[in-house]
């Protein structure tokens, strides 16, 4: 089973981004970037499937600028076998990324595509579902457990009301949720070794894909600010404030 894993280079999830004063976006100069945490979980799952003997090869793919090579090198250091960078400067939207992934899933004859359920920059939560639709295949989104038996995939999904277990036949697309696994850190020898692993670069046009955005971001704004609150000294004072000032309890 060949596994394709999509990884996105995003702002480090632990940082709080700043909106640029001119409303043209968020401040990304000199900001620490990292692999999207959900994609890291997807990659870890692929590596575990390979360690169990269920996967034979892991290809990490990223659609992004030249710098996304760093993210792919990290994927190789964690355990991906090869990497492909689809070079694209500027915003990449889920629809365009899904089209690029579809082309690569076909040319690589991937049996399983694993992705994070959302990227923590645009919070779209679309790419995996779009890819499955374009492939005409089944999807298992928000996965918290993935099992492969032969060509059948059994996935536990995190839903609004609880958990749901679904089965689907490969090829299929799985998007992963937080509790699927805890990604490993790459060891120093693995980081050294990753430098000699193959990393191919392709252009969107090579894949027959147009990544021109369809959403025009007119302005990026600060979220509405909350007015400052007050500290209370006791439970009695809190209850009094909630009753008489905020009037949210009786």
């Amino acid at each position, binding site marked *: 089973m060949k596994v394709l894993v999509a990884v996105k280079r995003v702002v480090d999830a632990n940082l709080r981004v700043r909106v640029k004063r001119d409303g043209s976006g968020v401040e990304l100069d000199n900001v620490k970037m990292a692999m999207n945490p959900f994609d890291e979980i997807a990659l870890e799952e692929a590596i575990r499937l390979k360690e169990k003997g269920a996967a034979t090869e892991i290809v990490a793919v990223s659609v992004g600028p030249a710098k996304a090579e760093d993210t792919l090198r990290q994927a190789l250091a964690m355990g991906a076998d090869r990497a492909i960078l689809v070079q694209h400067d500027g915003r990449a939207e889920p629809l365009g990324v899904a089209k690029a992934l579809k082309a690569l899933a076909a040319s690589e004859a991937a049996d399983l595509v694993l992705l994070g359920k959302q990227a*923590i920059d645009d919070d779209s939560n679309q790419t995996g579902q779009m890819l499955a639709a374009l492939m005409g295949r089944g*999807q298992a989104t928000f996965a918290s457990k993935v099992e492969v038996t032969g060509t059948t995939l059994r996935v536990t999904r995190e839903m609004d009301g*609880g958990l749901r277990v679904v089965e689907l036949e490969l090829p*299929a697309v799985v998007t992963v949720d937080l509790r699927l696994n805890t990604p490993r850190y790459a060891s120093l020898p693995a980081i050294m070794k990753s430098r000699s692993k193959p990393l191919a670069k392709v252009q969107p046009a090579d894949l027959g894909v147009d990544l021109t955005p369809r959403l025009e971001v007119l302005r990026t704004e600060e979220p509405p600010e909350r007015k400052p609150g007050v500290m209370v000294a006791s*439970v009695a004072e809190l209850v009094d404030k909630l009753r008489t000032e905020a009037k949210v309890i009786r």
Partner: protein
Amino acid sequence: MTTLLLAEHDNARLDAQTAHALTAAAALGQPVHVLVAGGNCAPVAAAAARLAGVERVLVADDPRYADRAAEPLAALIIELASGYDAIVAAATSTGKDVLPRIAALLDVMQVSDIVAVESADTFRRPVYAGNAVELVHATDARKIITVRASAFAAAPEGGQAEIAPIAAAADPGLARVVEERTVKSDRPELTAARVIVSGGRAFASKEQFDALLIPLAEKLNAAIGASRAAVDAGYAANELQVGQTGKVVAPELYIACGISGAIQHLAGMKDSKVIVAINSDAGAPIFAVADYGLVGDIFELLPELTRAL
């Protein structure tokens, strides 16, 4: 033309988030049809028809839609799509699952999780865990939109829409549901509750999480929520997680207990009307968004609060 709103439901009840999403759908300025796709879902269709502002309710009542799986549901909506220039759903686990599938098949870039409708093609949506808001103009002719229900008021009842049964579409047969582990709770639902009491890592065990929060929630008729740390530690079920990747809520009152207030948690609750934070660490970021902060030990303060209510 017309807007199609996908109803969120469990075959028996129309989920409250649909009425909120209806307000966003109506703001597009076109008549709204609601699609109820389910199995034995007549009560849902009747409830949808009572929402003010709905012109017609389409009902696809068929076993293949009983679990609202994305693949058959997308196949159905694709058959209907030519009659609609906007397709809208609340950003629930069903809406998030199925709408991008439809968008890709129609070659449309979806607008996810909108919090405001500025015009029929321009919307506001949060990005970076709500630390920025983008004003986006969708250039595709057809709009496909998921709605953050907590950002829109619920459409009232008082409508009398026509209910029109429609035929099921061919089932692509790509996936099957083999098990459903839904937790039945007497508590109000997180996304519909007027009051939420939410717990974090500080509870230190599932037993203490339940022992302290359930009595407080009962006093307030509140839903129980949790931070990611509490869910990861096994103190609370995953469907209780509030945050960037869990549920986004905006109740009248949100009481955060023993929650430090990571960016990802704040993203899911900072639009609550009144926020109370109770935490032993006076420097915890949760206090920065709280209207009322109380520093102290949750193991002493929560029983005291429960008694005082």
